[in-house]
């Protein structure tokens, strides 16, 4: 009989959307949201957010947001591991708000500190005429729901242009993954001297 038999494991994410690197654009803000599978549920923290608008300033080429991320998930299954989807927006020549990039990355999987730099891409217009009219009208192609960036299906018909990077920092803590039987790092269990049961496969 076991005193502690957990049914779920927890994933705690602390971090920030640190800065962006877009050589051609300025005055940008970003929105983030989390996309996860059916077995996952957030237990605390904010699932979405919008940052402040940042500029490059004098000589520095860096666009700094320093925007906090704080969320905890619970799950029974690593399938559908949460991803963070970041969308960056900025003004075009005429002052309209247009999308400058979408990007997505999985939340890091192992406890510890991680820095991720993700590429940001925009959907591309199909023809030169459409590119010109969208520049003139301020209505560039964008996704109706940014969450499609986190999915693998239906991307084979899209053409995109990658034009910048966003740097994120994460500090990850997991609880009870080992108790549920998941090995997430390659530490050899023989080193601990615990008895190993062997069965026929």
């Amino acid at each position, binding site marked *: 009989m076991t005193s502690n038999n957990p049914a779920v494991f927890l994933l705690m994410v602390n971090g920030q959307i640190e800065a962006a690197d877009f*050589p*051609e654009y300025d005055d940008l803000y970003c929105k983030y949201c989390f996309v996860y*599978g059916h077995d996952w549920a957030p237990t605390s923290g904010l699932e979405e957010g919008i940052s402040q608008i940042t500029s490059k300033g004098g000589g520095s080429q860096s666009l700094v947001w320093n925007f906090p991320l704080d969320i905890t998930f619970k799950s029974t*299954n*690593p*399938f*559908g*591991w949460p*991803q963070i989807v970041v969308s960056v927006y900025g003004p075009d020549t005429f002052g309209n708000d247009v999308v400058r990039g979408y*990007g*997505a*990355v*999985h939340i*890091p*999987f*192992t406890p510890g500190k991680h820095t991720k730099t*993700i*590429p940001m*891409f925009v959907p*591309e217009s199909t023809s030169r005429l459409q590119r010109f009219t969208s520049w003139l009208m301020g209505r560039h192609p964008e996704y109706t729901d940014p969450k499609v*960036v*986190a*999915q*693998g*299906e239906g*991307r*084979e018909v*899209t*053409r*995109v*242009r*990658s*034009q910048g990077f966003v740097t994120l920092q994460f500090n990850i803590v997991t609880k009870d993954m080992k108790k*549920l*039987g*998941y*090995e*997430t*790092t*390659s530490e*050899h*269990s*023989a080193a601990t001297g615990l008895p*190993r*049961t*062997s*069965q026929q*496969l």
Partner: protein
Amino acid sequence: MAELHIIGQIIGATGFPQNSLFCKWGVHTGGAWRLLSGLKEGQTQVDMPQTGDMAYWSHPIDLHYTTKGLQGWPKLHLQVWHQDSFGRCQLYGYGYIHIPSSPGQHRLQCVTWRPLGSWQDQLSEMFVGGGPQLRSPDLIYSGADRYRLHTVGMGTVELELCIFLRHFDRYGVES
């Protein structure tokens, strides 16, 4: 039964002659493995990078397998294609990589190669494009029938995969 989770991204590709690239990928396993959830093949978007040489796809991979044996450990195979401004697609490389067998996060580079035809084929390829392709994609990840194939190396595809193993130690498997 033991379980394997493969979660990560096909990040992008670099080192190819042109930049407007997409990738068709698939995961092949032996008979003892069963896919519980996730898509085991797919095609990325076409990326035209504005700055730099690397084409970025950030294509998510999330697979959950269960297995009764170690044989036929999953292999990820890919085909990198180039789409030009007219919408024509040309093969740029085949490559495969074994899914890592130790748990944790891995940054992987997959090298690619392209079949090379005769000198007449290469000359017409220079003007018209195209080029020889494999008749069946099984050859990408099997070594059985490659004897007289003549190929040339192309760029590399970068992936970041995290492997979770579950209950492998109950069966005495060390990794």
